[in-house]
Structures are given as C-alpha cells and as structure tokens.
C-alpha cells in the first residue's frame, strides 16, 4: 500500500509526462548541455543536530529538508518565494527555504517547525495558534508559526508596536488560502503582549 507521499509523487509524475509535448512546443532557449554537477558533501545544522549530506548544488534548502533529511514539516507551496509556506529560521532570521541553495547554509543554525517545541512542550507561538484556532487546513501553518516566531524579535529590534496593522504588514509574506488571518493575528498578538 503506497503511502500518501509516494502516491502523490507518482500522480504528479504522470501529470508532468502529459505536459511534456506542450512544454517542448514552446520555442525557448534550451539550457546548454553540460555535464551535471555531481553531488557534494554538505553539512547542515538543523534543530541543533548536524546532518552530513550528499547534495547536488542545485538542491534548495527546502528540498534538502523534505526530501533528503525527511523533515517534511516545512511545506512546499508555490516553490517560488511567494507564499511563505517554506519559511524557516536561519540564525534566527526567517527566510524562504525554496529560494536558497542548501549548500549556501553550511555553518549556520537552521530551525524548522520541528525544532520549535521543547520535547512535548509546544512553543508559545505553537500553543497560541492552537488556542486561537489560527488555521483550517494547516498547510501554511508551519511557515506561519516560524514567520511569527521571528517577527517577535524583529518588532522589538525595530522599536515598533504590536498593533494588528503592524502584525498584518509584517506577516504579508505568508499566505493562508483558508483565510485564517484574523485568528493568526490574534495568536501572534497574544504571544507578543504576554511576552512584553
């Protein structure tokens, strides 16, 4: 019995195959033919643990997390930096893991949604998302929570306030298709005000 992921992958592969003639018919400059760059050793520190990987340079941080390490909590939404589902923390700063290469992050501390809780104890932001029902389908939630976690420090560093408008502006890089925004803002506001 295939699990959900392998089923989806084979389904997507079939979709991709049917689209090949369409893509080939567009007259685009083809990528020049050169020998593929081989995998190389890449050492990443994720959630406090070192991982020794063998990755092609083109592998994004997002794909390294999901496909090579098996940390699937970080989500792939648009894969083009527009939706924020892949937000992770690098040395405490939020970035889009889809628009950066894994090999560029050797020597940095990467924190994913799996690294926010202390054992079974959820982080304050995770707990607040639960209590405020700040999601519906949940797909964007890991990115929302990572983004909101970094937002707390950014607002303090900037000497700004935690008004709803300020939170909305600063969370605009995280899209929620279910439209859970009011509860997301409420969850962030509560953690921010409780901490300050």
């Amino acid at each position, binding site marked *: 019995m295939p699990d959900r992921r392998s089923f989806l992958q084979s389904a997507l592969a079939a979709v991709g195959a049917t689209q090949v003639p369409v893509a080939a018919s*567009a*007259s*685009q*400059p083809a*990528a*020049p033919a*050169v020998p*593929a*760059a081989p995998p*190389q050793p890449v050492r990443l520190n994720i959630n406090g643990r070192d991982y020794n990987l063998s990755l*092609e*340079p*083109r592998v*994004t941080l997002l794909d390294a997390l999901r496909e090579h390490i098996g940390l699937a909590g970080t989500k792939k939404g648009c*894969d*083009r*930096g527009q939706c*924020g589902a892949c*937000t992770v923390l690098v040395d405490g*700063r*939020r*970035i*889009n893991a889809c*628009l*950066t*290469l894994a*090999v*560029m992050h050797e020597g940095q501390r990467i924190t994913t949604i799996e690294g926010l809780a202390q054992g079974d104890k959820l982080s304050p932001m995770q707990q607040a998302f639960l209590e405020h029902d700040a999601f519906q389908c949940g797909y964007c939630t890991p990115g929302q929570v990572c*983004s909101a976690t*970094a*937002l707390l420090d*950014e607002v303090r*560093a*900037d000497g700004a306030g935690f008004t709803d408008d300020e939170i*909305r*502006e*600063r*969370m*605009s*890089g*995280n899209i929620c298709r279910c439209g859970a925004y009011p509860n997301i803002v409420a969850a962030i506001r509560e953690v921010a005000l409780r901490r300050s």
Partner: protein
Amino acid sequence: MQSIYYERARDAAEALRLAQQDGARFIAGGTNLLDLMKGDVEHPLRLVDITHAGLDRIDELPGGGLRIGAGVRNADAARHAVVRQRYPLLAQAMLSGASAQLRNMATMGGNLMQRTRCPYFTDTAFSHCNKRQPGSGCDARQGYQRMHAILGASPACVAVNPSDMSVALAALDAVVLLRGRQGDREVALRDFHRLPGDTPQQDTVLQPGELIVAIDLPPSRMARHSHYLKLRDRASYAFALVSVAAALDMDGGVVREARIALGGVAHKPWRRPEAEAILHGRPLDDAQCRAAAQRLLEGAQPLDGNRFKVELAQRAIVRALRIAGEGA
C-alpha cells in the same frame, strides 16, 4: 531547475576570478536569480556565492555620507541606525518592498541586479519576449498592460523595474561602486539601469564579470523632509503601480532643493531635474507641485490598459511632496 556548479568566494578578488569562467553568475540572496532559474528563464552554468566575500559592511564616510556594502541584506540596511536617521527615505522604500523573508535574504547589490521584468518575461508560455530571447518580439505590449511602463519604453520592451530601493537611491543621488578585472569604477545610480531601446536584454550598464562592491550615499540635508509613497493593488507584498520618492531641503517654508524619483513607470527609476527645478526657491504649494508632476510625466506614452497611471503618478507626486513638506 537545471544542474549548476557552485563555488564560494572568500573575497572580492576571488569572486572576480571565479566569475571569469563560462556561464558564471554571482549569487547572493538568490531571491530573483533562483526564481528565474526555476522558471527556465535564466540559465547560468555555475554560481559564484559572494555572501562570504566580505561585502557586508556599512561604513560612515568622511563628510557625513554612508557606504553600504553590496552584500548587506536589505533588512539589515533598512534597520541600520544611520540609515534610519539620515536616509529614512531609503529605509521606508526598502521596507515597502517584497516580504520580511525576502528582505532578510536579498542584498543591496542583488536588489540592483534583479531583472527589470514583466509577466511576459517570467512566463515562458509566452514565446515572444525581446528581453528573454532578443529579436523574438513582445507579447506584453498587446497583453495585459496594467503594470507596464508609460515612460521611456521602446517598441521592443515595456517592462518596468520593480525595485523600490532603487527609486529611493535615485532620489538620494547614490553612487554604485563597481569592481572589474580592469579596476574600479563608479556609476551614478541614475545611470546604472538602462532604458530598453533595441537591447532590452540588458537591464544595467554592468559589464560581464563586473562586481558591485558597495553603494555610496552622499550626505543628505533632506532627512527631515522625505517620503516614499507606494501605490499598489494590495496593501502589502506587491509591486508598485506607481511609487514616488520625494525629498526636500527646506528653508523655512521655501524649497531650497527638491528630488523626485518615480517607480513603476519605466525600465529604470525616473527622474527629471527640470521638473525638480520648478520647485526650487519657492514655497511648496499645490500649484507648484502639480506643475512639477506634470513636467515629470511629460512625454508619457501610456497603453490602453495603463492610461490611468499618468494621472495616478501626478497625484501621487503631489501627495508625496506634501507629506515630505510637512516633515518628520
């Protein structure tokens, strides 16, 4: 995404040497380059990582100016105490661009090097794009025209440069410091980006293999009277339909000097000194502001789908000048 080779440069000299190789491109934040590589628009063979090349310093210059290293992240520059104090226009413009995540990644040099682009360039389903494939034509001109240029466009290209940062830098008379194999040179920000003409594939005057090392800001007397006004289709995380960087040096109620740069209207930040001169030596009143706005938009050639931008830009200029005039 196609296969790529990757090398990390430890300093600018090594970066320049590595960039000599066939198909090499610099990568810093990667937010535009990797996006375009995924979209099959850009095809570098090897990436030279310059994020460890020591280009991430911010230094005060003698006389009150500021040098911002090309590798400084946009978020760090916008948050820097001296930038906020002396160049609030720049901080405001940068914070209005992209998302918090992207600003944490994108660098000053990378922001300058993001492609001047329209959706017909980034979507390879459209086969005619002179910027993507020189000589192939332009699907954009007859397409959905809302975001296109109204000034300085050519029959070959109607794309707009989307950088908010560059609009502020143009108003602040910033200078781009470049380093190549033949040595260093300086280019005024206003001359760094190009109009499309017959060669829209070239966004900037940067030569192959040349590296942006820093951006210099001259001393500014306009910190108290500046404003960046960005108008867009949603409140955040969208390119400007029209944006205005307005900066004034005020002597009481009289304008000593004015700078106005427009974004969202052309292939590069749009400035016209003769429009600014209309304001010089006079009180800042609405009639003068409207006259300056009219002059800045002179020669606009809108398309049916973006005709609104001509009036929108003029009203935005008047409003930005008024807010700047009120002062911080």
